[in-house]
């Protein structure tokens, strides 16, 4: 029997048996093992094939994504900026796409040949600098930013390996220097470095640039309060005035007194934002926000408003201006000396230093200081523009300081600050921080702070109008527009002393005086006397006529209709007094 069973296993030689037992062990059934192996092999192959299948599906699904990805990279390199528009939607700043030339030095084979070919197409390229850049070990270098499409075409045809183009955004300012100080300018990387451009970066655009997400879409244009036509007219008149009176500089602001919007702001000389290197010239800085000046008689408006608002002085009060006011070793004189007792309106129209000084003294130093603080004349004025200047406030404010500050000497403020203060005196007593962005009445009312009583504002309008009818600003009486205003002539400090010949003249006008909508400030730095001004260089002879011309020109643009049936200033006060009762 055992012999019969034996043939199940094929006859093996002794050697074979020994080998088998060495390889597989002594008593192992190979059929069972084979099944397990087969299973393992199937599993392995199934795994490999499924990996291949998944890869195939992935290729099929993502291959068309290539084109899209490239375009995003192109947009991201171009740091797009939002357009800047004026209040009517005219473009003040916009982006256009320009190609820029770059190289990857590691991929360049023959540096000398590349330099030769490139400088042939772009003659203004510095050959040694290009050679240095191409010989460096860096992965990426700019060769020239903002080339023309024609040059791009030519360089493309040269077929230099390792040289390529990227589309970048270039900032253009179609209006050139007309709105330069407000919008500021950008650097070569399209980052704002001055004016509203810098403010835009501060609003989160800079972070977007860093993340490479600042693309053309999703960017809302920035709408400014400035009116391009008014701005142009103002600038045109100021350039003419600067030439005519041979002034060092001229500047002007038109502000909406009810919303605080700056409708126009010019400081001559200015610069062309398309050529930013001009902006570094200190002579071209914006005198209205970054310069501080003693505003002269313009400040008398603040002193009078303070006195009238205190309730201790009324329009019928009078002050002694018979003798110069002696204070220690100083003596305060009047320019248009009357040598008699003056009533409050007379003090304003004759621009009496003595009268205003006595008025301020009667209220006390602390009251004066607190009032100017309330009107924001003692703190730095912050607007959207990054450029601003701190006012120069005397460290020890004594009675002498109050005397001089009452008529505008001894305290230097930024002219825009004075505009804000005077606007508050005439718009009904609400101080509204000035803005360069468009703002509606509701928002302005939310920001407004009441600083003086509405009745006082009424009296200030009357005084301003009276001053144009029979005071120092008669040349501003443009028929039909009912202008009110206050002149200011301050002597400039030259070598530590007040100069008699170098003056800063200004004119502050409200338009129309019975219900002001706009405030205009004209400022001339060191105007000279002319034969037709009889050699005078005071405000009434230069800043006021310039203001009149500006008003005549911009009033139709500002939608102010001329009226010829208006009462005299004295009647105006009576009418408004009846209205308020």
């Amino acid at each position: 029997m055992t012999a019969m069973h034996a043939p199940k296993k094929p006859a093996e030689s002794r050697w074979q048996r020994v080998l088998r037992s060495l390889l597989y062990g002594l008593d192992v059934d190979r059929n069972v093992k084979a099944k397990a192996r087969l299973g393992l092999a199937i599993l392995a192959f199934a795994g490999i094939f499924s990996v291949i299948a998944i890869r195939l599906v992935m290729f099929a699904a993502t291959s068309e994504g290539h084109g899209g990805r490239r375009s995003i990279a192109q947009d991201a390199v171009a740091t797009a900026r939002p357009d800047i528009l004026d209040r009517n939607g005219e473009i003040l700043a916009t982006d256009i796409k320009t190609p820029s030339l770059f190289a990857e030095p590691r991929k360049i084979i023959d540096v000398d040949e590349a330099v030769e070919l490139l400088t042939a197409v772009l003659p203004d390229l510095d050959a040694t600098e290009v050679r240095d850049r191409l010989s460096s070990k860096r992965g990426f270098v700019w060769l020239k930013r903002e080339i023309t499409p024609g040059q791009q075409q030519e360089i493309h045809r040269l077929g230099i390996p390792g040289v390529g183009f990227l589309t970048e955004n270039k900032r253009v300012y179609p209006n050139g220097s007309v709105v330069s100080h407000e919008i500021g300018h950008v650097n070569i990387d399209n980052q704002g470095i001055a004016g509203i451009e810098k403010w835009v970066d501060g609003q989160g655009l800079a972070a977007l640039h860093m993340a490479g997400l600042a693309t053309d879409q999703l960017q809302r244009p920035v709408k400014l309060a400035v009116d391009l036509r008014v701005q142009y007219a103002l600038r045109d008149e100021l350039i003419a005035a600067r030439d005519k009176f041979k002034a060092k500089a001229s500047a002007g602001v038109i502000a909406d007194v009810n919303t605080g919007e700056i409708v126009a702001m010019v400081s001559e000389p200015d610069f062309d934002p398309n050529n930013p290197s001009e902006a570094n010239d200190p002579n071209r800085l914006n005198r209205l926000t970054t310069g501080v000046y003693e505003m002269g008689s313009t400040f008398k408006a603040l002193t009078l408003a303070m006195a009238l608002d205190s309730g201790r002085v009324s329009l019928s009060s009078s002050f002694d201006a018979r003798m110069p006011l002696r204070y220690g070793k100083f003596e305060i004189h009047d320019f248009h000396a009357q040598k008699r007792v003056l009533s409050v309106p007379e003090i304003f129209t004759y621009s009496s230093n003595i009268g205003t000084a006595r008025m301020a003294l009667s209220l006390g130093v602390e009251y004066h200081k607190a009032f100017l603080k309330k009107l924001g004349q003692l703190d730095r004025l912050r607007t959207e523009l990054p450029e601003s200047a701190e006012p120069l406030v005397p460290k020890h404010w004594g009675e002498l300081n109050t005397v001089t500050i009452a008529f505008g000497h001894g305290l230097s403020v930024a002219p825009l600050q004075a505009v804000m203060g005077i606007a508050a005196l005439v718009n009904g007593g609400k101080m509204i921080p000035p803005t360069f962005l468009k703002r509606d009445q509701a928002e302005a009312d939310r920001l407004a702070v009441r600083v003086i009583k509405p009745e006082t504002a009424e009296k200030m309008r009357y005084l301003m109008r009276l001053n144009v009818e029979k005071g120092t600003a008669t040349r501003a009486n443009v028929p039909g527009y009912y202008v009110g205003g206050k002149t200011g002539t301050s002597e400039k400090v030259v070598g530590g002393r007040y100069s008699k010949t170098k003056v800063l003249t200004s004119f502050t006008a409200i338009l129309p005086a019975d219900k002001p909508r706009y405030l205009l400030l004209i400022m001339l730095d060191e105007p000279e006397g002319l034969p037709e001004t009889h050699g005078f260089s005071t405000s009434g002879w230069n800043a006021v006529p310039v203001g009149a011309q500006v008003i005549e020109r911009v009033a139709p643009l500002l939608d102010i209709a001329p009226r010829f049936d208006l009462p005299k200033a004295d009647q105006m006060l009576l009418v408004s007094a009846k209205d308020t009762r």
Partner: protein
Amino acid sequence: MRLLNILVIGALILAASFVYKIKFDSTLQAERVAKLRGELRRERSAIAVLRAEWAKLDTPGRIRGLADRHLALQPAKPTQFESLDRLPERPPAVAPAPNGDPIGAMLAPAAPDTTGSVPPARTR
């Protein structure tokens, strides 16, 4: 069994060709999308250039120069503005002369009820 195999092979070929067709179409569509995107980008930058150019041509300074050169217009003076409610009534229409007499025609429509909106009554 053999029939089933043939059927399965046939279905496989059908499915494969169908998938290929879909894939081919989608590639075409994707290319079209990429092309349109590029076109859009080009058009957008062209629009930006044109807008900048228009803004440059539209600057008040340039318009003023052109107006000075080509127009005889002067800046409006305050006295030249007038409100609508102060406009005078429209003058009565002049009726055609019945017999070719112009002066008679001017005198004729002076009927009392003739206004700007009521035409003069025609005689005859």
